[in-house]
């Protein structure tokens, strides 16, 4: 390097947009939180909606029980959106909404809230996540079947590209794929395949105008990625994605404008790798993961939100989230990373990693394409993810993959961070749900019902019409304006589109190679079968609206590999459904998984329903269950509780076999129910 050529940039780069994924309890409480976060230096908003809002149910729906205001804010109608954004200038703010199945609806509410502030939709900036394929694959908050879901996405793209031109109508999410166990190659390949499906649908939707608008559409597609703690390889992954994206734009969609070909992404770093054991270690994991998405200028994130150190324990408090925001600020304002051009340019290691990932991803993309594209390949991809996740868990169980504080260096002092009464997490006031139910009833009573009925009828008419005919955004915005609710909008569309259950991936998951551990487990299960007179039968399912099914799927697959008969019920179950299934199926044990924090309400409800159905079998519970809730659950009648620190699934299986065995000793030689 010659002396006149400084290795520095002539001017320090502007930092990325800093966000905190936030929202809980009510619109009003969340609005206060947003204002405080902005005062602390946060530069964009990231709205977390509660599960009823994400899946299209009002707070007074049976399925919403226990979930209202838990993992995010309930937004039921335009009044809620106005309260949520009160005092925040929507013409200037950049708002990211983690919303998918009901994205069109929430965007409509946002547009109406802007109107109320006197802001035109043209000037709105932000992102709706709106990636339905990954909901089918990993996150579970879908509402409609694949075809109409893709139509909603295409309609939103077609609408925003003309009327809300600064809006990113969709964030292609590879984030949740990594959470579901994806390897870097799978993360790249499935995200790109997903993008192809979306862009193809958009091109078809635009019809005659595709030539004119496709450049703009391509330029508005952004990604939402993940970064794990292997941060060098993770950085390479992002560079590889940038190369593939540009290639795709040029070759498949004929885009030539350099600006529009740029790979733009926001990021939330990995939550899967965050541990419940010695949770303070998560802070350094988060810092290192943040480096993966900031170090190299050529593949740096546009927007970052970091998880909190205590996410494996429960919901983070404002203070925990502040800590994560401060990590970003230290990185951007104290370190020198923004002062240089791309620091990996010319690095043989980095180029080699990128080449390796590109080759793997291209191969995997070809397989997805052979299946007929991402929508058709959902069952294939789902099964592949379940397999990868299982492999990951086995590496951790065997100690091959080190997780500090969890499978190695486990000796620890007592953490002062989790010393308070709630164990260092946020607990949402259970009164919130009743309040919200009351509030939505008041809203329905006070509005112009005729106008709402007419708006919903119009929505149904457009939905039932031919595709590519009328854009669903138009009646959706009208319904938002008229005062319809989230549940009513979704119900109207469910009536037309039908409802849907995504493939679970567990049926296709291949059998695990038998190691010693598994062989021993199989023997135990065989012995138990002998005692019971038939194979031990386990019901695995997820009550409530939480769609994070990875844990439940792994339990189901391992139980099968151990030789049990597994009734896998999937997600979104009511207590009554679980009780009916347990009775009809004649199971010996029930395994429930909840990650949304609704276990305090839902588990006792399930146990009550089982009692009513006279099903007397042990119930075990797994998920993000704070330590101080364990006693309460056991008192309610739960036989065992497993939390993220119980990472060894084989141990859980041994335990379950023991529980069923003890039960059957207590009840005589055959555990055949007495219904």
């Amino acid at each position, binding site marked *: 390097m010659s002396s006149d050529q400084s290795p520095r940039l002539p001017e320090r780069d502007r930092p990325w947009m800093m966000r905190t994924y936030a929202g809980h309890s009510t619109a009003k409480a969340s609005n206060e939180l947003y204002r405080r976060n902005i005062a602390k230096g946060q530069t964009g908003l990231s709205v977390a909606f509660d599960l009823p809002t994400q899946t299209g149910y009002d707070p007074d729906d049976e399925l919403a029980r226990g979930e209202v205001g838990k993992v995010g804010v309930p937004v039921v109608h335009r009044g809620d959106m106005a309260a949520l954004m009160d005092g925040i200038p929507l013409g200037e703010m950049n708002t990211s909404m983690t919303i998918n199945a009901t994205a069109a609806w929430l965007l409509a509410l946002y547009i109406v809230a802007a109107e109320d502030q006197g802001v035109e939709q043209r000037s709105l900036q932000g992102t709706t996540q709106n990636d339905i394929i990954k909901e089918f694959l990993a996150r579970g908050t879908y509402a409609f*079947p694949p075809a109409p879901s893709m139509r909603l996405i295409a309609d939103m793209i077609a609408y925003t590209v003309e009327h809300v031109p600064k809006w990113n109508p969709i964030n292609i999410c590879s984030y949740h794929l990594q959470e579901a166990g994806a390897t870097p190659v799978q993360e790249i390949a499935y995200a790109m395949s997903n993008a192809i499906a979306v862009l193809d649908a958009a091109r078809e939707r635009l019809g005659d105008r595709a030539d004119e608008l496709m450049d703009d559409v391509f330029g508005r597609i952004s990604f939402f990625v993940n970064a794990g703690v292997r941060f060098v390889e993770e950085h390479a992954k992002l560079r590889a994605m940038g190369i593939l994206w540009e290639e795709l734009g040029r070759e498949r969609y004929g885009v030539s404008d350099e600006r529009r070909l740029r790979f733009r992404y926001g990021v939330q770093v990995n939550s899967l790798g965050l541990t419940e054991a010695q949770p303070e270690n998560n802070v350094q994991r988060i810092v290192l993961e943040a480096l993966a998405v900031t170090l190299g200028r050529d593949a740096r994130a546009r927007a970052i939100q970091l998880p909190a150190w205590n996410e494996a324990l429960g919901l983070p408090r404002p203070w925990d989230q502040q800590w994560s925001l401060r990590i970003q600020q230290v990185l951007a304002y104290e370190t020198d990373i923004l002062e240089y051009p791309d620091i990996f340019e010319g690095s043989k290691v980095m180029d080699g990693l990128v080449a390796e990932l590109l080759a793997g991803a291209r191969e995997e993309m070809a397989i997805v394409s052979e299946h007929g594209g991402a929508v058709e390949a959902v069952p294939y991809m789902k099964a592949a993810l379940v397999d990868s996740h299982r492999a990951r868990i086995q590496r951790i169980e065997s100690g091959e993959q080190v997780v500090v504080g969890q499978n190695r260096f486990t000796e620890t002092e007592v953490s002062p961070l989790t010393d308070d009464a709630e164990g260092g997490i946020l607990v949402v006031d259970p009164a919130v749900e009743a309040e919200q139910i009351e509030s939505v009833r008041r809203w329905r009573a006070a509005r112009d019902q005729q106008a709402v009925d007419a708006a919903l009828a119009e929505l149904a008419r457009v939905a039932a019409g031919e595709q590519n005919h009328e854009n669903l955004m138009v009646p959706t915005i009208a319904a938002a304006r008229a005062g319809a609710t989230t549940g009513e909008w979704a119900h109207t569309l469910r*009536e*037309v*589109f*039908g*409802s849907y*259950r995504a493939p*679970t991936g*567990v*049926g296709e*998951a291949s*059998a695990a190679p*038998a190691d010693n551990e598994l062989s021993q487990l*199989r023997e135990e*299960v*065989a012995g138990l079968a002998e005692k*019971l*007179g*038939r*194979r031990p039968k386990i019901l695995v*399912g997820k009550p409530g609206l939480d769609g994070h099914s990875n844990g439940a799927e792994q339990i*189901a*697959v391992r*139980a*099968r*590999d*151990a*030789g*049990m*008969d*597994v*009734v*896998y*019920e*999937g997600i979104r179950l*009511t207590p*009554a*459904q679980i*009780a*009916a*299934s347990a*009775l*009809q*199926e*004649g199971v010996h044990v029930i395994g429930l998984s909840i990650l949304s924090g609704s276990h305090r309400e839902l588990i006792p409800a399930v146990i009550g329903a089982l009692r009513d159905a006279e099903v007397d079998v042990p119930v075990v519970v797994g998920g993000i269950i704070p330590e101080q809730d364990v006693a309460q659950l056991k008192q309610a009648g739960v036989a065992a509780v497993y939390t993220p620190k119980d990472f060894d699934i084989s141990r859980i299986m041994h335990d379950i076999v023991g529980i069923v065995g003890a039960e059957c000793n207590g009840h005589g*030689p*055959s555990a*055949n*129910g*007495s*219904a």
Partner: protein
Amino acid sequence: MSDGTPTGSGERPTSAESEDQQREDSVGAALGKRLRERDLSAAPAALNLLESNTTADREQAAMLLREVSPAALGGEAQGHIVGVTGPPGAGKSTLLSALLRAWRHPSDGESKSVAMLAVDPSSKRSGGSLLGDRARIDFDPADRGVLIRSTAAGERLGGLAAATRAAAQALAAAFDVVVIETVGVGQAETEVADVADTVVVVVQPGSGDVLQFLKSGIMETPDVLVVTKADLGQIALATRRDLSAALRSLGTKATRVLSVSSVPPPEGIDELIDALEEQRTGTDIAARRLRARRKGALLDFTAEHGERGLRALGGRPAAERLLEREDVGLDTQALVLSLERVAERADSPR
């Protein structure tokens, strides 16, 4: 209960009476009786018993089955046993959800109680199984007129476990409709045909499998062929046409070919239900079930005692003749017992 019990002993000494008394008190007999009285809530426990293989439970199961045998019922069980089979992805679960809705809430006429036995393949390596069908069938958990039970196929590939056949026969005493759902075409379809009154094969548009199987004779012709996803239009029509042509060229009887669409608004579901009903009234159910019980008994006997057992009976044709001589009201389990008695006598030194 004694009015319909299988006879054969002739005299009724006191010891038999106390045996009767015992049987009446037994869990199995009590469950069988409740099923006979159409008490649907007895079904889950009855199925637990029928699936069990402990000696004590098997004795109870035999008593249960005796209570719902044609002899005890005074005729064949009234429920319609419908086998539904087809390749994975053909849309069976969606179709079954639609059928379930239509049976429970018909546009006219009375609602029917429905039991569904969903058979999933077992993992050959571990013996365990993942029974995922239940999650794909929509049902109202509060509806006491519906029972869905997932069962593993057991060791034999594509086969029906003996317990599933027994379960279908027992449930037919209590439920109006008993559906056995299996995966596959060819083998699975044949096994279902051995126990069902009516066999439905489900095909999705554009899949040539069934056509191939039909032509090659691997598959017996089903009673009803259903082409799903009629909403796909042209391709669904073409598939239906091909199937009809293949059936004509085979010169087969009245196999109905129907198109259905389960996406709203559903189409063809009522027509399918009518076709099932017509098929049923046009079949000699008693003869078909008698054949099924005899075939099932021979299968179960062979599974238990192997070729050696068969030889003790004097070979397969001799065994078949033995079964034909038995009372037509006996249940499968009782038929197996009588074969076992003969085999024992033959085996014991003269």
